């Protein structure tokens, strides 16, 4: 009996001494992409963005987002403020156009640009493709508040992404993105994004509130909240230039 107990204690000690099994970080990042990519369905919602700048009244933007990720398309239509009502962005694959109803003209835009005067990027509105655009260069277990997280460092493998380097805080329990830091090529922190709340839509978790903090311009931040998320089928005509023109008539 003594021998058996001793063998078990030895076994437990050996097990404790052995390193924990390596987490499947690419798999975790892939799951983040899957959560934020609507592969087989359309997606629409309303975003309210409240942008704060020191010494200025907060600016409120309300946009309606329509996404068809399987065709790499999205359309953003400005609902508020009144001065920007009718403006819109249309993505078709790698092209992004901005429509201005005043001039009735479309102009090429970039996913790297900020969405209007907020700290959210146009790329924040499109389907996630972290695993495709970045390489995982490091990871470590850590804690963020009360959550155990994996902190994953990513480095861009192309020049088309908004930030050359990112660090992600991913909850170990449920693989949800809780925080993201975006860095410049020179490793300077440019933006921190926080994802404190999630809603469940058709079995998948979507961040219902996001906070983007500009780390270069002190005091500048934008809070984005999501409303009326829907996976209802959208007409093909939504993802066209004609749609943006039509809604402004």
């Amino acid at each position: 009996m003594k021998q058996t107990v001793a063998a078990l204690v030895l076994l437990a000690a050996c097990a404790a001494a052995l390193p924990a099994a390596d987490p499947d970080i690419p798999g975790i990042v892939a799951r983040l992409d899957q959560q934020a990519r609507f592969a087989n369905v359309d997606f629409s919602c309303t975003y309210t963005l409240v942008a704060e700048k020191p010494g200025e009244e907060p600016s409120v933007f309300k946009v309606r987002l329509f996404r068809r990720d399987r065709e790499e398309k999205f359309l953003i239509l400005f609902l508020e403020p009144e001065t920007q009502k009718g403006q819109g962005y249309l993505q078709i694959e790698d092209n992004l156009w901005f429509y201005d109803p005043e001039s009735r003209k479309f102009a090429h835009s970039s996913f790297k640009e900020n969405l209007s005067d907020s700290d959210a990027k146009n790329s924040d509105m499109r389907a996630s493709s972290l695993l495709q655009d970045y390489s995982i260069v490091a990871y470590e277990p850590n804690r963020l508040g009360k959550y155990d997280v994996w902190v994953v460092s990513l480095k861009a493998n192309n020049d088309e992404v908004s930030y050359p380097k990112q660090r992600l805080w991913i909850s170990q329990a449920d693989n949800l993105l809780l925080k993201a830091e975006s860095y410049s090529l020179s490793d300077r922190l440019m933006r921190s994004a926080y994802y404190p709340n999630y809603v469940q839509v058709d079995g998948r978790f979507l961040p219902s509130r996001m906070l983007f903090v500009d780390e270069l311009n002190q005091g500048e931040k934008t809070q984005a909240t999501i409303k009326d998320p829907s996976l209802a089928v959208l007409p093909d005509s939504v993802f066209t230039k004609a749609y943006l023109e039509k809604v402004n008539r």
Partner: protein
Amino acid sequence: MNGARIAFRNLSRQKRRSFLLGGAIAFGVLIITLVNSATGGFVENVQENFVHILAGHIFLEGLERTPSGRTVSVIRDDTALTQAVLATAGIPVRSLARRSQLTGNLIFEGEGVQQIVVGVNWAEEKELARRLRLRAGSIEDFLASPDGLILNEKIARRLRAEPGDRLLVQLRTLTGQQNVGDFALAAVSADTGILSTISAYSHRSHVNALLNILPHEYTSLGITVERLPSVDAAAARLYAALQSQVQLFPRLARSGNSDDIRRVQKQIRDDRWEGTKFQLTTINDYLGSVNQLAATLNILGIALVLILFVIITVGILNTFRMVIYERTREIGTLRALGMQRRSLRGLFLLESLFLSLGGALAGLAASAAVAGAMTLIRFDPASPFAVFLSSGRLTFKLAPANLLAYLLGVAAISLLAVLVPAVRAANLEPARSLRQTY
């Protein structure tokens, strides 16, 4: 000689009439000279201001396609370019400027401003270091600081930054990646007009690091030639010399023509090429609208001078018809005393010539005086008009050929105008002329 003396005497006999007619000619010459010389000054000042900003009359850019289809401007190897510039006959090179340039958001204590920062190889551009007028800091401090920055006083004031402060810059690298860096504000330059706020200066090596290109690489090669009029010819020779050595985009068919500029830009967008393809442009390509404005002003000046010439012609014609009518008996006397028709005709032509040349010279003198007085006025260097000024002042440039043309034109017109009355006077019968009574 006698004819000239008599012609002078005749003009001085009618001082009031000669003064008015000569004054009209002088006024015409004054206006056209002022318009033409002011236009010449405008064009030269705009060109010079842009030459200082862009550091050259002729520019070479190397364009590359990234794998994602983006076009980036970088010169990685300039051996062929430098060789062609220095070895081709007929390119009077004064200096070369190998510069890198970034556009970024300068941030200091919560304030941000979009700014172009030019990375200069200061060992190559000593003249620029001498020419910069500094309000604060020193060029020595700047040269000693590897990430130093010289900022225009207006921009520094907006950022509330002073020498010694460190500024953040947020920019895109050459291939479009987000980057953030620092500048040490080493000196503040005097605001010498709208153009001086366009550029801030730093070291090329630091700008290159921020753009994520190698230290020896740069974004544009500026060639300053000795004489402004030789720019287009020198550019044509350089283009021909480079054609066999590097890939080149076609030159604009007409300098500064907006359709041509759009056509070449479209070609750059649509073209597919491997490696680096170079684009050669000149200051005249960028100043098309200025040259058009100058041409319009010159046409306006020419129209003005034609109107004035017509008035002068009619004035001279009528005046000399009256002169001949008044001096019919004198003509008869001169003819009776043996003066030949040719001499008599020449006498009137000389009178007209002296009158017109006197008027034209007076006009030129008045023009020089007015222009001289106007150059004393100092305009606000921050005004949009400043681009037409040289250090805040108007300048006047009149080509000697134009000067000669005005003198000859006025002389020819006055001779032509007086020819008919002079011939009529020479053909008068002496006996009938002597019988003429008023």
